[in-house]
């Protein structure tokens, strides 16, 4: 038996493969066996309903996609009554991704989340006018929000960092000082698409967030930078498409990873990755994932 378990700060995960926020919903349980996953992060929830951005909300780029969803969600009350109970039945670790337009909103929502594996604080969405990336680019704000959230909950807090900064070490450090148990590195990269018909940006909000294999070397580098500067567990996110990518992230310093847009390309990717990780470790003679990083 090959052991894929990994430690993420205080948490033990049965394997490092999590589903990222904003890419899956319950119908995916028909395709993927959620019990095999290390955990899942649910779509961002805000205190009040958000209707999201006007369509189009998604487009393709070479080896990636750009989205401008704008955090559409039905608000926390709906989430608590209708979604959370269902999430708890999935048989995997649940992380609740939260979003607020002010420190107060983050506090309000953080105080209400109970009985899940952890909270992921989204201060890095590039597709909203208030909060999001704007918070995530300012280390002081990252510190304040993290501290505020940690003050409201006993759950492990993960801060999802923005890649739109010059020094991601600084925002990672701010999250750590604010009390974060881990950071996710990193969210989508702001990118532009011009529609040649209208000769204007395709998205109403001009930019969208680039994700998918295209960004992998950039996001992987973010993990490496943080690993070498800040002593905090890291969840890698960005462009993972196969088990080799997971290993690269693991070696670069991540303790777990999130799969995002790859599930649009291949909904079975999470399961194939787990199977292939086991094969690879077996071939190399490793018994545990942890051994990969032993010298």
């Amino acid at each position, binding site marked *: 038996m090959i052991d894929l378990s990994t430690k993420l700060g205080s948490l033990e995960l049965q394997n490092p493969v999590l589903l990222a926020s904003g890419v899956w*919903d319950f119908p995916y349980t028909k395709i993927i066996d959620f019990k095999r996953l290390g955990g899942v992060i649910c779509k961002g929830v805000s205190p009040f309903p958000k209707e999201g951005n006007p369509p189009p909300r*998604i487009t393709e780029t070479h080896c990636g996609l750009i989205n401008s969803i704008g955090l559409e969600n039905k608000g926390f009350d709906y989430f608590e009554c209708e979604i959370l109970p269902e999430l708890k039945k999935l048989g995997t670790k649940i992380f609740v991704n939260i979003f607020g337009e002010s420190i107060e909103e983050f506090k309000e929502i953080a105080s209400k989340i109970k009985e899940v594996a952890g909270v992921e604080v989204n201060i890095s969405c590039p597709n909203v006018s208030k909060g999001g990336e704007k918070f995530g680019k300012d280390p002081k704000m990252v510190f304040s929000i993290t501290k505020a959230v940690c003050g409201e909950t006993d759950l492990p807090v993960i801060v999802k960092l923005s890649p739109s900064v010059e020094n991601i070490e600084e925002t990672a450090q701010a999250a750590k000082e604010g009390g974060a148990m881990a950071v996710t590195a990193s969210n989508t990269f702001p990118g532009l698409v011009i529609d040649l018909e209208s000769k204007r940006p395709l998205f109403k909000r001009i930019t969208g967030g680039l994700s998918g294999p295209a960004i992998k070397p950039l996001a992987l580098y973010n993990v490496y930078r943080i690993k070498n500067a800040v002593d905090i567990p890291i969840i890698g996110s960005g462009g993972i498409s196969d088990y080799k990518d997971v290993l690269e992230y693991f070696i670069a310093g991540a303790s777990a990873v999130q799969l995002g*847009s790859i599930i*649009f390309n291949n909904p079975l990717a999470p399961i194939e990755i787990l199977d292939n990780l086991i094969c690879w470790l077996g071939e190399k003679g490793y018994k545990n994932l942890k051994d990969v990083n032993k010298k």
Partner: protein
Amino acid sequence: MEPTFRILPVLENKKLGPYNKITMKDVQIYAHAECGNFVMIGLQGFDPYLSRPFSFLEGNRTSFSILLKVKGRGTELLSKVKKGDKLKVLGPLGKIFCPPKEGILIAGGIGIAPVYYQSRWMKGGVLFYGAKRKKDLILTREFKDKGFTVRTITEEDGGLVTDLLKEYTDELDGKQIFVCGTKGMIKSIKGILNKEQIEKAYVYVEERMGCGLGGCKSCAVKTFEGYKLVCTEGPIFPLKEVKFD
């Protein structure tokens, strides 16, 4: 309906009018497909990165087919698949719709595909069908065989499907109406239907999709009750619900 994800081999890719009829070997997906369902189809690899939504056209216990119109890069690449090539197929997707035994189908261009699929559950009615050129009109024989009255018009003849509807507007009364075509066509149809007709009209909505499974929230369509997701709450919506801008 229980969606699955499969890698299916192409059995045939042939021209049907200006479109490609692509048939895949399948024992699982079409068997569970209901009225209102569609599939996401993708090429292996990352080009294109996203799969594309298509209506079922027809099928049996060992295969099903779609009708594809080349629009942009993705459909261009898909239109070139050859026998034996493997496609990624996710489905059946979408909200099941309970079709009437008889009703009015209105199709423009490639819009013929979903209404033809819907006709599988129907015993007859009227098909109003517009296209660019005469030779673009397809499947009319099949509709007739199924007991439909078929009324066609083409831009070549100088007419739009709305002209047809105006001519036969009383045929629409009291029946459920299903419209599949461009946004422009749907809007003008809405303009000429009367209140009672609109009350019983439904529309096949198209939006760009990421996942087809309600996961990404990209396929939002504006309705009078806020945004709804085409992939899980559609693609068939009551005409009166959808907001066109």
